[in-house]
């Protein structure tokens, strides 16, 4: 891979990462401020940056960068300027070989943190206290915004303006309409992102607190069980499939189910349905369902290539075919909501009963609040990421089509290879030459740029980004980084260890705690007299005969044994970290070597 060797115990410097062969000039796709620039090297090189592979797993097409800028503008505005989350401002991002690395901006001044805490407690408290009412208003706002996006027209450029322009009042010519519509489309996107993040931090924060609380009290509880206790029963996101199940039953009841044959395209199925009255009325029923329930995305992500069911009905039609054949085979296809409800309540009751009374109260309160905020956590994706965003990308495609009709692009889809500023520039020239009748340069200018960028993106897709770059932080303290990305101190240390390679032994985490010290390798019981105070015992296994030395040592590592082996039990009695069953500790470690025993994670690091 084209990364330089990492510095010892650290990640590669962002300034030393090489461009993969054939991708020279990738920087031109991205805004100047998105790059690791020499002029701020001293600061950027000494920060910790991690790859946001959760939201941006693929190299960014130039236009899609707007889905980095707007979200980070919006999340920072709410987090930093509205709620004033005490220790964390917003998130900076940088682009390396097309991949997005992020880093939180911490607040370190205690006085400032205290000042912000007052804002936060008041403002967040207001939101939590009025959640259901505020969220109701939010939904109305989002539906209005989606309506506004639908009404936004992308004008064509006619040979002659219609009579209305000549004879009517308050009419604009097409050049103005185009130049007006494009930034309006961009602004509607910004507004969506603003709404998107209004509740997000608080919603995730309440839920995340419940998750953390569960894990502190019940450290091994599967994440799935926590989610099951909170998840809503009658959730918007389940509606699309519920509608498909209803339509499947309708198709059988009206005798048109035979049209839904495995292997047929949606188009072929529609064509057959058009042949009968029953088929036509089924299609009418489908039309009623499509808005809004077909505004689901075919993939989960922020890239332009995730389309909606409306654009690509192959997914819902495949579901229809599956539901119909299941029903005809006598199977039950309904979501067993009563059972889900029972199981959700049973889990909550049984887990709650395992806690002591005080913890039980916190558990119940956090669970109730999580259930209150969860509709937003689940539903904002439908409103924002699916419904709005798929339609918004389509609106941008309309501008692409406009450019393509005049030869500025070979295909409407190519619009996403230009940055939003470049699109604005191309539209400027387009309406200019439309107005003047002059010869546009765009058709010669843009297509080669688009072709080159497609080639670069394809090659960048083969490059593997390191999980983190810059310096290794001592600890990750940014609550947003931990909450939204799960990037914790332990995770970063694990990444750093992987960069080091080879010097870590894994075993069972037998007794918690982390300690560093000098190893004493003892191969048989008659060597135990050699053990000195404060050493770490490394041995094959221990038996009761070893008891006298446990008061001397400060940790133990064994080759064999499980968490209930003698060494493990005694180590827990003495409160010593222990890792057992490493397989090769006595071979890999020699007496006198400094090692770190992590009895919580089950790792032994040779230092």
């Amino acid at each position, binding site marked *: 891979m084209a990364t330089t060797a990492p510095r010892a115990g650290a990640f590669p410097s962002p300034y030393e990462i090489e461009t993969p062969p054939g991708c020279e000039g990738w920087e031109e796709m991205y805004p100047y401020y998105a790059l690791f620039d020499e002029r701020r090297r001293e600061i950027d090189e000494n920060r910790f940056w991690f790859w946001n592979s959760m939201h941006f797993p693929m190299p960014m097409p130039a236009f899609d960068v707007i889905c980095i800028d707007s979200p980070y503008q919006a999340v920072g505005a709410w987090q930093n300027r509205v709620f004033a*989350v*005490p220790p*964390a401002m917003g998130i900076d991002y940088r682009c390396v070989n097309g991949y997005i690395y992020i880093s939180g901006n911490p607040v370190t001044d205690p006085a400032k*943190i205290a000042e912000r*805490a007052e804002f*936060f*407690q008041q403002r*967040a*408290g207001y939101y*939590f206290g009025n959640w259901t009412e505020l969220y109701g208003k939010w939904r109305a706002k989002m539906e209005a915004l989606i309506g506004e996006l639908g009404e936004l027209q992308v004008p064509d450029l006619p040979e002659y303006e219609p009579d209305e322009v000549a004879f009517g009042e308050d009419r604009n010519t097409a050049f103005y309409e185009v130049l007006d519509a494009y930034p309006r489309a961009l602004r509607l996107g910004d507004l969506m992102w603003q709404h998107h993040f209004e509740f997000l*931090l608080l919603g995730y*924060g309440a839920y995340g*607190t419940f998750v953390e*609380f569960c894990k*502190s009290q*019940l*450290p*091994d*509880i*599967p994440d799935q*069980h926590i989610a099951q206790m909170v998840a809503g029963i009658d959730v918007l996101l389940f509606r699309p499939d519920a509608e498909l199940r209803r339509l499947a039953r309708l198709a059988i009841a009206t005798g048109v189910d035979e049209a839904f044959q495995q292997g047929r395209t949606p188009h072929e199925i529609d064509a057959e349905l058009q042949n009968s009255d029953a088929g036509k009325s089924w299609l009418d029923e489908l039309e009623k369902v499509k808005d809004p329930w077909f505004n689901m995305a075919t993939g989960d992500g922020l890239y332009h290539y995730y389309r909606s069911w409306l654009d690509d009905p192959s997914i819902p039609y495949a579901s229809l075919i599956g539901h119909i054949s299941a029903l005809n085979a006598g199977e039950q296809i309904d979501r067993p909501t009563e059972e889900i409800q029972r199981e959700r309540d049973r*889990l909550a009751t049984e*887990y709650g009963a*395992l*806690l002591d009374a*005080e913890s039980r*109260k*916190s558990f119940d*309160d*956090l669970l109730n*609040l999580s259930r209150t905020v969860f509709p937003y956590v689940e539903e904002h994706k439908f409103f924002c990421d699916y419904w709005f965003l798929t339609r918004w990308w389509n609106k941008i495609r309309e501008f692409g089509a406009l450019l393509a009709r005049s030869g500025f692009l070979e295909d409407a889809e190519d619009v996403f290879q230009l940055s939003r500023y470049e699109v604005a520039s191309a539209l400027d020239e387009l309406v200019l030459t439309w107005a003047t009748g002059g010869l546009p340069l765009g058709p010669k200018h843009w297509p080669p740029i688009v072709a080159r960028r497609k080639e670069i993106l394809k090659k960048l897709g083969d490059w593997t980004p390191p999980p983190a770059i810059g310096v290794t932080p001592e600890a990750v303290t940014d*609550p947003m980084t931990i*909450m939204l990305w799960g990037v914790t101190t332990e995770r970063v240390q694990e990444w750093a260890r992987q960069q080091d390679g080879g010097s870590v032994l894994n075993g*069972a985490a*037998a*007794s*918690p705690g982390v300690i560093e010290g000098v190893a004493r390798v003892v191969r048989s019981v008659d060597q*135990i*007299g050699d053990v000195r105070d404060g050493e770490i015992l490394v041995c094959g*296994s*221990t*038996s*009761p*005969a070893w*008891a*006298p030395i446990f*008061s001397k040592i400060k940790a133990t590592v064994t080759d*064999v*044994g*499980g*968490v*209930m*082996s*003698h060494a493990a*039990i*005694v180590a*827990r*009695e003495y*409160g010593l970290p222990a890792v057992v*069953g490493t397989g090769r500790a006595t071979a890999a470690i020699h007496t006198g070597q400094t090692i770190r025993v992590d009895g919580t994670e089950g790792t032994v690091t040779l230092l």
Partner: protein
Amino acid sequence: MTEYIRPLEQLSRNDEPNFGGKSANLGELLAADIPVPPGFAISTEAFRAFIHDAGLEKRIGSALSGVSAGDVDAIGRASRAISEAMRFAPIPAAVREQIGDYYGELGEDSPPVAVRSSAVGEDSQDATFAGQQETYLWVRGTEHVCDAIRDCWVSLYSPPAISYRARLRDREAQPAMGVTVQIMVDAEVSGVMFTCNPVSGDPSMVAINSSWGLGLAVVGGEVTPDDFLVSKVTREIVREHIHPKQVQYVPDPAGMGAIRVSIDGDRREARSLEPADLERLVDVARRIERYFGCHQDIEWALPRGETERVLVVQTRPVTAVPNKTEKPKPASAMSLIMSTFGAGPPKD
């Protein structure tokens, strides 16, 4: 009349001072309808009669004088002197006779039994640590049972036991011990389970370790056992690690004792418990936990050829649960949320 022996089913936790924790707990398990192999318990009176009749008090006292906890060599010398004296002392006739009677009632043809020490008092709580868990497996015939019982008594003066009592500054007190004699099953699979995760402290999990053959291999840490974590709430296997199991203990074909044999072929890598076995074990674990009202450390065995039967051979309270101070102090939901955002009361 001095009571030397009682059947397990007649014991309850009140008998712990006279019969030791292991025997008393087995009596409780039987009262709770948990399947436990039949057997009988030797009281501490029998041990005292043995020491007294053989006139051993003085020898023990002088051997131990001046021994300190950290002095490995001195402890070894004291242990050797006491053990030798005890091994050559006879078991009182009255005790020996009763052992023969109760053993005979366990079955014809010298049935194989396990003979285990059953520690009393403070030792009982910390016995896992001290290693005073002497076990003799597949013992047959009254003579051998008597020898094994005496060996258990001798283990009270093993080096770790002496060291442990010295650490407690308790060497003046006269220690005593009960012994459990219990019919032995030829286990196809055996192991240990905790009614919580002993590492994380999670009370919603049953942690199960298992391996092939008799329980010695797992308890003694001679194999890295298969390791399962099973949810009490949903019975699902939350984590499992199947390890290669190199050795197992099986009854010696010669008729007495257990031998260590290597495990070869596919069986070494094979999982020793199926999901259905785990479910049965979890059910037993929950019943025992409910009955005792606290977390338990349970030894169990699945008999060869009828592995659907779970037999419990021992249970005791979990001795060390991880430090609870790591858990956040209970607080109101809102203040916990505020601290998620760094706006709460300072974390300590």
